[in-house]
């Protein structure tokens, strides 16, 4: 049943004077998916960069109870932009005109459709850095990053998206424009609505502008690769380094399954007989960097690293990071479906989480690959399966549930950087508790009394379960 009627379409067309209104089936199907699971057909797709038009659309939707789904370039891995209840998709990737770097204030002001990599480029031209670096930055929009509170390898040292946002302009679900935060790093006026909106996955409003915090670009970086005969030892090395006073900018883990997959995909001379390797990147002043590199290498050896390699030059260094980048594409060559989890644990629990993951792998007989931003406890256990194999998918569902349970039991969280979306909603109560989840629902109710903004996300429907088959 369509929730958008012909009468609505006429009204929408009258509102959208500068953009496009798409109702053909080919267009609607093209906005029915993201980087996660499931296809949900929207009734209508609208592209406009005019904020006044967006405001009118939201008012119409609120009056007529039409669901609204803001969408960037839909690289989301948690189902954030999926139009699960039909209605209106707003394609905000077209709002890509504003990208200002204010050097003296160390901020960037951007519109939501700007690609995150463009912000990186613009900041670097001025010797600055926008710290969050999601792996999809060359194709994901900043609006999507803000909505999902994206992370990236540098999250270890520089945090996730919310740590770099100081101000927003948003359209509320009732069609009003408000500003939160501002252009100052110090800003303690009232409730921190900026942090509330970032990561609210489009359920509290539509972000139309953002003020981002920039930092000076570190002068130098260096990389270390440490090879281990045990995944748990690799985990210990990570905790040891972090408690030693060195603060790496990245710390990435690849287990044996990912090493083998990458080597098969593109031979780079990786040690496929090793149980795991970690890649560590340090940044800072060249002099302190040199000392810290030596210290970190020595620490890896004491914890039992079989070998520690320091690349000779930048080209060799790039090769090492290439190996890490190839894990995702390489593992889907094994089987077509990839369930990419981002359950995260406190850093001290990394070795224990590694052990639990291996047990889950064996218990359910699944193909589990562990890699990711281990330095911040964000381990990315990936399950490689075939979604057309129903029996296998049932086992995968159970394994995923158990991975979440393990993470939460170890004091961690369901999501380090991908967001909750549709995929993890059923597990929210497990992490937050009944009252914790209810407080969030109450906030949602106040902001969006008619439940039109991205309904069906974050909060589980009664009886909702993880379904992959």
């Amino acid at each position, binding site marked *: 049943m369509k929730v958008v009627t012909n009468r609505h379409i006429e009204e929408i067309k009258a509102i959208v004077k500068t953009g*496009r209104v*798409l109702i*053909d*089936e*080919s*267009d609607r*199907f*093209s*906005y*029915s*998916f*993201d*980087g996660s699971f499931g*296809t949900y057909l929207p009734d209508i797709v609208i*592209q406009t960069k005019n904020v006044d038009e967006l405001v009118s659309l939201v008012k119409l939707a609120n009056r007529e109870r039409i669901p609204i789904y803001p969408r960037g*370039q*839909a*690289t989301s891995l948690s189902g954030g932009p999926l139009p699960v209840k039909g209605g209106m998709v707003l*394609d905000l*990737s*077209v709002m890509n005109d504003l990208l200002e770097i204010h050097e003296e204030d160390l901020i960037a002001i951007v519109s939501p459709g700007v*690609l995150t990599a463009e912000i990186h480029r613009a900041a670097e031209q001025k010797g600055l850095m926008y710290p969050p670096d999601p792996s*999809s930055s*060359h*194709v*994901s929009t900043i609006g999507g990053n803000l909505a999902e509170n994206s992370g990236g390898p540098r999250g270890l040292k520089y945090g996730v998206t919310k740590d770099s946002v100081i101000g927003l302009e948003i359209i509320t679900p009732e069609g009003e424009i408000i500003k939160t935060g501002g252009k100052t790093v110090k800003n303690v006026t009232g409730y921190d609505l900026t942090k509330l909106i970032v990561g609210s996955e489009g359920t509290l409003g539509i972000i139309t502008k953002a003020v981002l915090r920039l930092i000076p670009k570190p002068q130098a970086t260096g990389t270390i690769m440490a090879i281990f005969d045990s995944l748990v030892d690799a985990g210990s090395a990570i905790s040891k380094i972090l408690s030693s006073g060195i603060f790496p900018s990245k710390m990435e883990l690849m287990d044996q399954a990912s090493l083998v997959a990458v080597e098969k995909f593109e031979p780079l001379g990786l040690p496929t007989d090793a149980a795991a390797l970690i890649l560590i990147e340090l940044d800072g002043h060249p002099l302190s960097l040199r000392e810290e590199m030596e210290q970190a290498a020595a620490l890896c050896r004491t914890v039992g690293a079989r070998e520690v390699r320091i690349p000779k030059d930048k080209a060799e260094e790039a090769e090492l990071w290439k190996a890490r980048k*190839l894990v*995702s*594409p390489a593992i*889907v*060559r094994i089987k*077509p479906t*990839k369930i990419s989890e981002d359950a995260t644990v406190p850093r001290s629990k990394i070795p224990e989480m590694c052990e639990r993951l291996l047990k889950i792998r064996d218990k359910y007989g699944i193909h589990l690959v562990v890699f990711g931003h281990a330095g911040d406890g964000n381990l990315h256990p990936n399950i490689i399966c075939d979604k*057309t194999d129903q029996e296998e998918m049932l086992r995968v569902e159970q394994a995923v549930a158990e991975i979440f349970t393990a993470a939460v039991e170890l004091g961690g969280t369901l999501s380090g950087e991908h967001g909750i979306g549709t995929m993890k909603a059923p597990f929210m109560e497990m992490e937050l508790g009944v009252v914790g989840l209810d407080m969030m629902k109450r906030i949602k109710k106040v902001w969006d009394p008619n439940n039109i903004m991205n309904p069906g996300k974050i909060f589980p429907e009664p009886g909702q379960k993880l379904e992959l088959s």
Partner: protein
Amino acid sequence: MTVSLKDLREELQYDKTKNCVQCGYCLPVCPTYATFGKETHSPRGRINLVKMVGEGKITDLSILEEPLNLCLGCRACETACPTGVEYGSILEAARAAIVKRKRFSFPARLLRKAMLNKVVPSKKWMNVTGHSIWLYKKSGLQKLARTSGIVEKVPYNLGTFESVIPTPVSPIERSQAPTEVKAKHKVKYTVAFFTGCIMDSMFHRINQLSIKLLSEAGCNVVVVPKQTCCGALQAHAGEMDEARHLAKQNILAFEQINADFIVNNAGGCGAQLYEYGHLLSNDKVWAERAANFSAKSRDISQILVACGGLPDMQPRHGERVTYQRSCHMTNVQKVTQEPLELLKSIPGIHFIEMNQADMCCGSAGIYNIVNYDASMQILDEKMKHTKATNAAVIITTNPGCLIQMKLGIEREELSHSMRALHLVEYLAEASGIS
């Protein structure tokens, strides 16, 4: 037409769509997504539409028609794809499925069949085309057509192309074209030259220059008789049977000569020749022969580099040159370095890479004829970057790109300061060959 979902999946190569993880890495490199700004015109969007048919969610294939027709087939998405989705195969299969079900109007059907199956693959008909254009340009007809305004009234905007098509060689000169040329200096390779259909009729001069350059660089060149059109236009239009038929004819013709390489000078044709092995992989009789053919197929730039380049090139005195890549050469044949190497070997040249150099120019076979408006939008994007280089020469390596860039120069009214040339023409110019 009722077919089971299982058969439809096979027909559409549905299994190949499953490798798409919808990561969107193809979006920034797709010229139609960048130009038209809709997911419907992105590789990920198109693959999803095919997937939806395979899953029974879309039952009317005509929904796919426009999104697939507006794809240039440049395959930049394949180069960008981290999971190795075979987009080209998915596109080809889907187009063939649509063509099979589509009821073209009688004149359209006649024109399609006549052009793709009779004219383009036929040496005789392509000669007639070449001769007609020659006659048109030489006889005063062109002048008459222009002053009478009739060029603006011909269908498919063909009038626009009229001004940028080069004057072909005369029928007499064409009939005297040599079939064998010896290497000028020490012999390095014996190569069989692939003439192509459009190249042979409209760009006959570039073919002749190619043969001279190959001989100059140290190749014995043989122009194999009975060769025909490569079949690329047919394959892209979804006429797979005709494409296979032409491939077999070419394999047969070139098997007569035991050359070291089969050399072509057109990126699009080269890609098709490079893929014969893939095209006939399910044919027991032809699979191996097709694979052998493809293994020998090379772009002329590869052979010239393999021969050690061209001797005695004259300095260009700081001429500003840029290079518009052929998509099929880049994304299918993966030939990217050799043309640059040859260009940079010309003394005194000032080479400037344009922004987004890998983006398609919008020519794409007959795309600029059948999707004229879309093609011009893509071209206008391309010309922004081309103009910014301030180059005096734009080098191309495919006849379609060459015509398109000439058109771009006309549209921007830059013909007084900028010219478009095939790499072969420019190398010949630098080598003093005419």
